[in-house]
């Protein structure tokens, strides 16, 4: 008799098995939900930290002062020269008049206001405010700008940029390690949970093998079962994650003390989170089933 791929049979067997071994299925889904929630929470924290660092990176700029002795036409061409420097994201010209106004606005308050009233414009230099694309290349970009003819001085604090890079790298590293550890742990736990379910059905599997079932025929219902458990776990975890994230987001928004923290709205991340949860749930569910069923096929 020819072996045919009977998908509807595998799906019905998968569902049947889930309900027949209800408690084990519930345990497996709970494990998937717990692991995905922990993994998701760490990942979302990492994403938010990354986003905040990104904003800080984007705000990180340095000033390049223009030599006041160069001819006007050379000064006019400087903007394009600076924009052409590698890793420069934006260049904004600030005239000495504007610089003076900013300075006075910043410092001429209260009793000392008189001291700043008659400052001549010549005290200040024309300057460019420069933002970089990749903060890791900050120092190299500063050096490159410094060597541009017509630039006489630079005001930059590379230590701050370096600090951002270190924090960002540490946050990413920790997130990656945690996510990998949690995926491996999830796989192990799910494999063992499904293995317990498989163990109770070892006689059934032995009968199937003795009747002449191929390994793939025996394996498919378990794979479908793992897929269903993984997806159910992913959907439940997604909804819980949404709820927990929104609650924390609201708490931070309404808090007076931690207003500096900005939270990315969940709706912005929802599709990505759902996709990753479903993908991870499937991998963990199917992987766990495959690992669990392996030894019972050796009959």
């Amino acid at each position, binding site marked *: *008799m020819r072996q045919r791929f009977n998908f509807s049979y595998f799906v019905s067997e998968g569902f049947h098995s889930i309900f027949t071994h209800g408690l084990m299925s519930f345990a497996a889904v709970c494990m998937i939900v717990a692991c995905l929630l922990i993994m998701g929470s760490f990942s979302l924290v990492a994403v938010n930290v990354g986003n905040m660092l990104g904003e800080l990176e984007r705000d990180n700029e340095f000033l390049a002062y223009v030599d006041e002795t160069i001819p006007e036409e050379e000064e006019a061409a400087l903007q394009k020269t600076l924009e052409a420097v590698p890793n420069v994201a934006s260049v904004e010209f600030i005239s000495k008049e504007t610089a003076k106004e900013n300075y006075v606005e910043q410092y001429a308050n209260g009793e000392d206001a008189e001291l700043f009233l008659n400052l001549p414009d010549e005290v200040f230099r024309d300057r460019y405010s420069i933002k970089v694309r990749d903060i890791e290349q900050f120092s190299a970009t500063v050096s490159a700008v410094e060597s541009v003819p017509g630039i006489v001085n630079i005001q930059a604090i590379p230590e701050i940029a370096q600090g951002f890079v270190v924090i960002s790298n540490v946050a990413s590293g920790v997130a990656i390690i945690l996510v990998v550890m949690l995926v491996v742990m999830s796989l192990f736990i799910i494999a063992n949970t499904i293995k317990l379910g498989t163990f109770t059905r070892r006689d059934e599997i032995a009968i199937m*093998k*003795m009747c002449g*079932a191929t390994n793939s025929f025996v394996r498919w219902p378990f794979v479908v079962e793992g897929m269903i458990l993984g997806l159910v776990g992913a959907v439940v975890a997604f909804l819980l994650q949404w709820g927990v994230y929104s609650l924390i987001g609201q708490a931070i928004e309404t808090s007076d003390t931690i207003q500096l923290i900005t939270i990315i709205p969940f709706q912005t991340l929802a599709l990505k989170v759902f996709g990753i949860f479903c993908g991870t749930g499937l991998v963990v569910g199917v992987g766990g089933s495959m690992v669990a069923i392996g030894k019972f096929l050796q*009959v």
Partner: protein
Amino acid sequence: MIRLIDIYKTYDNGTKALKGINLRIDDGEFAFLVGPSGSGKSTIIKLLTAEVAPTEGRLMVNGYNLNTIRPRQVPYLRRTLGVIFQDFRLIEKKTVTENLTFAMRVVGASSREIRKRIPYVLELVGLSKKKDMCPNQLSGGEQQRVAIARALVNNPSMIIADEPTGNLDPQRSLEIMMLLERINELGTTMLVVTHEKELVNRFSKRVVAIESGRIISDETGGYYNNETTF
């Protein structure tokens, strides 16, 4: 057809289970395999179903060379065999019909084939009226009939029965053996492993006796009467 030529089997722990077995069972034959515990009967069944491989010697089962068989061919070999166990090995949560359907599904039978075959087999084993019952609602003899029906349902060319009457009273044992004889008369080769002397002697069939991994007698129409050995 079964052909064992100079078969030796030594397990990983050093146990020498078979020591030079030569045995041939032709298509349509009915043979009893008798012998005490530890004589090697179970190892022969495991060899025939490709659960274990021989250490030495040549082994053919229903056209498959088990010395060279690939793992992916083993399921197809097993489809030519029906195996019956002493403890029935039925799925308790499934009805009689579902147990048989399960056995047909795993070899890829269509619903049409299943609908056609199962009533015939249930009629053959005399369980048509109990098709919707679960195994725990049946007597031991009836459960063994279900196991026989399951072994038969995929129309194997040979049935291997491992102590099929071990859990049954003498009357039910006789009924089961008569059923196996009837199935054999319909053309299925039958190899019955048993301890039951009276039962073997009641049927005038071929009796292969094995002891300490060696065949000590092989007689057609033989008797199982060696008191010192068994």
